[in-house]
């Protein structure tokens, strides 16, 4: 499609320009700020949709590429190098979709609205940047830059323990990131201290032009992995998440769950697999084990939470465990399921946080015990909640099932017992969700405060309905989404499969041999 050469840069700049524009308005009315931000995010979303017709599904190469030298000194080179493939394409669109919905879910913000909206827009730019960066330093820049607006969103507009949660979120993530930075520089040094270009480095590694000593590869993998595992979050690095979610404002939670967590799994897929295939394969059994523990652990702990939001937060630990398991199954089905599940989780958990926020705005509590019989007063809300709940627990016909099914299928073909263990998470999901639903929505209304609950208004319906329709669409007709990923996922698998098929690996290694487990 003509005119899309700079579309990624436009996507990146739109929210920044919007933010600058809002920031420069002298004393804008709240309404102007809200509508303005909504318009900017909607526009960004529409522009991101233009990626779809121009995207070549058959190609595994990066598309819509832009590459300019950013900092260069002799051989030393940092590029402004952006581009997307079938994996990042959908994550970018997920991001731009969730933004306007999050803005609509922020209607009740009344403190420092201007700063809030500006930070939201900067956050969006940061997230898009992470998904489109093809230069390690550029990636790192966005990865860190994104932390700042989120830190403030939680720390300023959060709940009672917001400072604790914001600091915990920041330190956990920054800790991982700094170690990744060290690995990133090490990787650059192996690249003859030339560039940080991901495509170039990956190409040289694949061609054998760069040989990483096993120990170095292992250490770099560990560093990248730690940063991503914290972000995912993988058990046992997950405890920042429930705190951050509970304290974050609704939009913060939506973005945190919907987009930020995906950066961890995206990172595993984009960096760990192609750059460090040997280490990935060797450590896969351990990673899968952590993923499975996360699936079951997250579900069990979700079950006993007294706070709806914390319940949803722990359910994310469980769901993201599935994604990691799919990636480290190193099967095509598993990878595809994992990528699909990233999108599903964004849709359904994003919607869940929006829904929880709606209830919170009405009652200023999220304790399950404060509710009961809500379905009498809010039938539409209850029906919406039910659909999203079903999507979240993987009811076939809705989106979540496709992802979980493919992940488990892929895992089963290589490690049946892993799949069996992970599949038990599907049972537990029904337990914690339905039990919560029963206590909140069913039964008689036994608290006076709940008698005055109002059902959804039009704005709220408009916020949730798109996600419900998407959940249905993605469940019934996943083909359109999956086909665009095929080639890129196949390529991501290539290096790993080379390693797995190589005799050296099979003979040399008998302890970590992932096929045995």
């Amino acid at each position: 499609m003509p005119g899309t050469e700079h579309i990624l840069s436009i996507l990146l700049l739109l929210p920044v320009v919007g933010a600058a524009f809002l920031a420069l308005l002298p004393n804008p009315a709240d309404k102007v700020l809200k509508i303005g931000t909504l318009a900017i995010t909607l526009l960004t979303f529409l522009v991101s949709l233009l990626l779809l017709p121009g995207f070549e599904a058959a190609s595994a190469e990066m598309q819509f590429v832009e590459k300019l030298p950013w900092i260069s000194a002799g051989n030393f080179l940092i590029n402004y190098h952006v581009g997307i493939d079938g994996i990042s394409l959908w994550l970018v669109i997920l991001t731009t979709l969730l933004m306007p919905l999050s803005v609509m879910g922020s209607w009740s913000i009344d403190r420092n609205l201007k700063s809030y909206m500006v930070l939201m827009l900067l956050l969006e730019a940061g997230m898009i940047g992470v998904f489109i960066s093809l230069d390690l330093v550029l990636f790192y820049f966005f990865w860190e830059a994104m932390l700042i607006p989120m830190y403030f969103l939680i720390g300023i507009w959060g709940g009672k323990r917001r400072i604790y949660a914001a600091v915990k979120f920041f330190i956990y993530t920054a800790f991982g990131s700094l170690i990744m930075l060290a690995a990133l520089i090490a990787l650059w040094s192996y690249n003859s201290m030339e560039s940080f270009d991901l495509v170039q480095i990956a190409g040289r590694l694949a061609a054998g032009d760069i040989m990483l000593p096993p120990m170095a590869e292992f250490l770099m993998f560990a560093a990248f992995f730690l940063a991503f595992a914290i972000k995912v979050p993988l058990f046992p690095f997950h405890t920042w998440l429930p705190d951050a979610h509970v304290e974050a404002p609704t939009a913060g939670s939506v973005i945190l769950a919907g987009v930020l967590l995906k950066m961890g799994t995206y990172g595993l897929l984009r960096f760990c697999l192609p750059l460090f295939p040997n280490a990935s394969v060797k450590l896969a059994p351990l990673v899968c084990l952590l993923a499975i523990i996360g699936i079951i652990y997250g579900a069990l702990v979700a079950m006993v939470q007294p706070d709806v939001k914390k319940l949803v937060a722990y359910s994310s630990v469980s769901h993201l465990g599935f994604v990691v398991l799919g990636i480290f199954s190193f099967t095509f089905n598993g990878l595809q399921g994992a990528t699909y599940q990233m999108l599903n989780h964004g849709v359904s958990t994003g919607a869940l946080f929006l829904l929880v926020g709606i209830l919170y705005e009405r009652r200023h509590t999220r304790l399950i015990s404060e509710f009961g019989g809500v379905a009498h007063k809010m039938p539409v809300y209850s029906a919406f909640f039910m659909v999203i709940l079903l999507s979240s627990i993987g009811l076939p016909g809705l989106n979540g099932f496709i992802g979980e099914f493919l992940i488990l299928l892929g895992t089963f073909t290589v490690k049946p017992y892993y799949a069996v263990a992970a599949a038990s998470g599907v049972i537990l999901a029904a337990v914690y969700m339905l039990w919560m639903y029963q206590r909140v929505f069913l039964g008689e209304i036994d608290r006076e405060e709940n008698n005055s609950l109002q059902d959804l208004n039009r704005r709220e319906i408009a916020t949730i309905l798109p996600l419900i329709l998407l959940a249905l669409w993605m469940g019934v007709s996943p083909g359109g989404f999956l086909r665009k990923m095929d080639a890129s996922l196949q390529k991501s698998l290539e290096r790993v499969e080379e390693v797995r098929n190589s005799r050296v690996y099979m003979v040399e290694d008998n302890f970590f041999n992932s096929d045995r487990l």
Partner: protein
Amino acid sequence: MLENFSLLLVFPLLGAAINGILGRRLPARLISFVGCGSVFLSFSVAAISFLQLLQLPSEKRVVVQEVFTWLESGDFIARASFLFDPLSAVMILTVTGVSFLIHVYSVEYMKGDPGYYRYFSYLNLFVFMMSVLVLADNFLLMFIGWEGVGLCSYLLIGYYFETRIAGDAAKKAFIVNRIGDFGFLLAVFLIFTTFGTVDFLRVSELAARNFPSAEAGFGVLGIISLLLFLGATGKSAQIPLYVWLPDAMAGPTPVSALIHAATMVTAGVYMIARSSAVYSRSPDAMLVVASVGVATALVAALIAISQRDIKKVLAYSTVSQLGYMFLAVGVGAFSAGVFHLFTHAFFKALLFLGSGSVILALHHEQDMFRMGGLRKYMPFTWGTMGVATLAIAGIPPFAGFFSKDEILWKSLTGSGGYPILWIIGVFVAGLTAFYMARMMFLTFHGQERFSRKSSDETGHDSGHHEPHEPTLFIKVPLGLLALLSAAAGLLGLPAWLGDNYFEEFLHPSFVHVMSSGGHHASHALEIGLTVLIVALVIISIRIAWYFYLNNPSAKEKLAQVLSPANNVLYNKFYVDEIYNMLIIQPIHWISSRVLWRFTDDAIIDGAVNGTARMMKSFSGQARRIQDGYLRRYVTWIITGVVLVFLYILFVS
């Protein structure tokens, strides 16, 4: 019509959408019209397609209609494509036919309910999901229907969601079913890795081709069979997962009739019949199926004897009859299992609908010990339920006689038959006759024990308190089902009496079944055993008559003697309590105390925050070094100089 039979799926889905989205603003009349009309259209399409299927020569009676490719990833493909063959034809006719009658019945039964639109929307959605389950041409698509009917069951059990019981029962049904679905899902994976496809027809062919002889022990086919069977024990309420079905009676009675008796709960039997090519190659798995089936039949029949709630009796009776069906497929008599499924759909639906008519007449009284003598007031209900009782008890020539007789005969002589299976099966037949007769006598005969003072739900006094017959909306479905309960058995006569059209018709669906013959036995033996069973049934009814009508005081005495046993039965062997104590409570405790409070809060966060605290206290200590006192700085400098001096002096 035959080539476009999938059209029948569209109507109920559309009906569910219309009533679900717009229903709150529509008049009740229109809601009922949409609800019933859509199912009638489905039934019509099914019936026409069936007639057209009959025109084809029997080996060509397989029609596949592909609608679109649903899920394709790598080598894995699951299409949204549907299969119309004798097995699915019988099933879809039963499902849509009975569904239509129950929809009509519901028009009257649910009249005036505030959630009328919601009810019909769910019910239509159920018909859609059940049709997907039945018509699916592959395991994964079937799984959509499989979990979809589970969802509808959840929604309808919890229909009266203001009550605690309904909410609990709905949740329990969903979760217990999910445990079964876990098995189903794993089976799909194993089927795919074994056969490279999940299409029913391909899997059957490949099973026949690649596994020419039966498996000894539990090989891959045995494991597939057991995993699928785990799914079946959930959906079809068999040991150990049957516990949800009795509780499911919290839903409206027509729902119990449709979902929890006639159609959904038989899905497990249907699914095993669909996978017969796989099952028949694993005799050991078959034996498990047959044993679990007969054990469930026995346990549930025993519990049914002691229940007071009329719907609970029928619920346990359903569990027990489903056990028979699993006994049948477990001994390799797939056609007999499906035949019993078919006849059971009529008489059990009729029993539930009849009980609904009674419950309605008595203003939602369900305790049989507060009924009695209703025959005088409700002769039509009595008559139709009587037919159903005779059918389920197995009195010739009613439908249940033929289907149950075939199962018992096959449990003795079928390829997987054993005398012990037969003996238990016959004993259960006696129990069945007993508890059904007990139900009829307590409800319709003897003293009138019901309260005439009750006013209806809304609290206003409705004037006349005599129980009375329902309107035509209820009578017509009862009448039609009574006809079917009386006559449907004639389709499958035993060999000594005539032709088994049913088995003959189903045969093309079972061509890949591995038949290992079974034991040969004479007609004379078969007739002799049948006479014996019928005699036992009549004696059982006579005993029930003696205890519950003729001589109630004898029952009291007996009840006193047997009171411990009776308690155990009335409390359903305390299975729910045992599950609660051994599974639910420990999981809850571990999750809350060990995982959340201990691991997350104390260990992980403790370590993280502990590190932070350590840093802080370390920094606090380190800060003291720079306290601003010049003399202390001088001390540090001198100490340093001395240390360096000593180092140079001694080490170098």
